[in-house]
């Protein structure tokens, strides 16, 4: 292995949601980068075999040589497939295969990859594909903790509830009757102004329905698209509300207390109230 003697197993975190398009990959990229920025050694794995995108969001798409399927099938060593991030040196990315399908992932193969990563990393972050099929089940099976990404919208909340049920019944921790997977709620694309107008589910309502601890609220923000356009995880954009909100979420994950920001509608001046305006 890459060094280090006997040490504790890494914490395995799955970023999941059930529903697609709610911000799992954006959140995985931001969260992995933020955790690594605190000095933790972090490996982030793309489990979306066939539809990989974490490489693009992380800006490493041109450096992909091997992927997780190559490693599982013995065609490449883990060290060869891992991509070291050039911005944060404690961060590595393990891409998904673009040409294979999800059946190429085997439970034993994934277990071996996670165990090998555990020898060198503090956190292994698994970016789940959408759905509750094989790829998603594989991404969550070995999890110690789960970040459930939810939009303030009925289908997303329902699917989050469904995936919580899956975590509680079909994860390894559930099957082996160990302590349950620790669940965290991450609300993304939250728009305080629309909530104030009664057009969007309130944070309190989402929490009341899903009943899991709140890790963070990421406001709807133009900076998320800018970040994905350029392949820089949005947490690196320290000027942006979304970047700061992810940073808060990482700090909370590590046990710090941070007040929830960017929840309320921005206070508007007279002119923007009359003529309208958009959130930054």
């Amino acid at each position, binding site marked *: 292995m890459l060094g280090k003697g006997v040490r504790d197993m890494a914490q395995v975190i799955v970023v999941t949601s059930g529903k697609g398009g709610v911000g799992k990959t954006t959140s995985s990229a931001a969260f992995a980068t933020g955790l690594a920025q605190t000095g933790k050694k972090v490996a982030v794995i793309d489990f979306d075999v066939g539809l990989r995108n974490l490489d693009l969001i992380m800006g490493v798409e041109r450096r992909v040589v091997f992927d997780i399927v190559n490693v599982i099938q013995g065609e490449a060593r883990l060290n060869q497939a891992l991509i070291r991030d050039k911005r944060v040196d404690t961060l590595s990315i393990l891409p998904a295969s673009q040409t294979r399908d999800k059946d190429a992932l085997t439970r034993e193969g994934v277990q071996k990859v996670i165990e090998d990563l555990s020898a060198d990393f503090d956190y292994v972050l698994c970016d789940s594909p959408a759905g509750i099929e094989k790829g998603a089940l594989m991404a969550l099976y070995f999890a110690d903790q789960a970040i459930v990404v939810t939009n303030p919208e*009925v289908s997303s909340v*329902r699917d989050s509830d469904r995936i919580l049920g899956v975590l509680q019944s079909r994860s390894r921790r559930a099957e082996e009757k160990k302590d349950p997977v620790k669940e965290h709620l991450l609300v993304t694309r939250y728009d305080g102004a629309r909530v104030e107008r009664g057009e969007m589910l309130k944070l309190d309502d989402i929490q009341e329905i899903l009943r899991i601890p709140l890790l963070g609220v990421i406001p709807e923000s133009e900076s998320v698209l800018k970040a994905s356009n350029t392949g820089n995880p949005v947490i690196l954009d320290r000027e942006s509300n979304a970047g700061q909100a992810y940073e808060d979420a990482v700090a909370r994950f590590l046990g710090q207390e941070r007040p929830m920001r960017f929840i309320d509608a921005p206070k508007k001046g007279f002119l923007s109230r009359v003529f309208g305006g958009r959130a930054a």
Partner: protein
Amino acid sequence: MTSWLAYFTNRKGTTPATAPAAKERLQIILAHERISRKGEDFLPKLQREIVEVVARHVSIDPEKVNVSLERGGDLSALAITVELPGPGGKAHAAA
């Protein structure tokens, strides 16, 4: 707020709040989904057992039994309709 200012701020027209409906609908459907998640769908089994019990007393066509469930917030209605053959061979329904 004076009315002229309200005119400007609401110039797009006010729409009724829809978020409370979203919350209520979610609470109802999730309450049901959480229960059914724990076991298999019980309705087919219920229907089979009802057919057996009723068939002990009257001769019925198992195809003429209908079980439906309407999920509501405070209560759900389970409706069972068994079509019984009439004395002259004409069927009449009992609910």
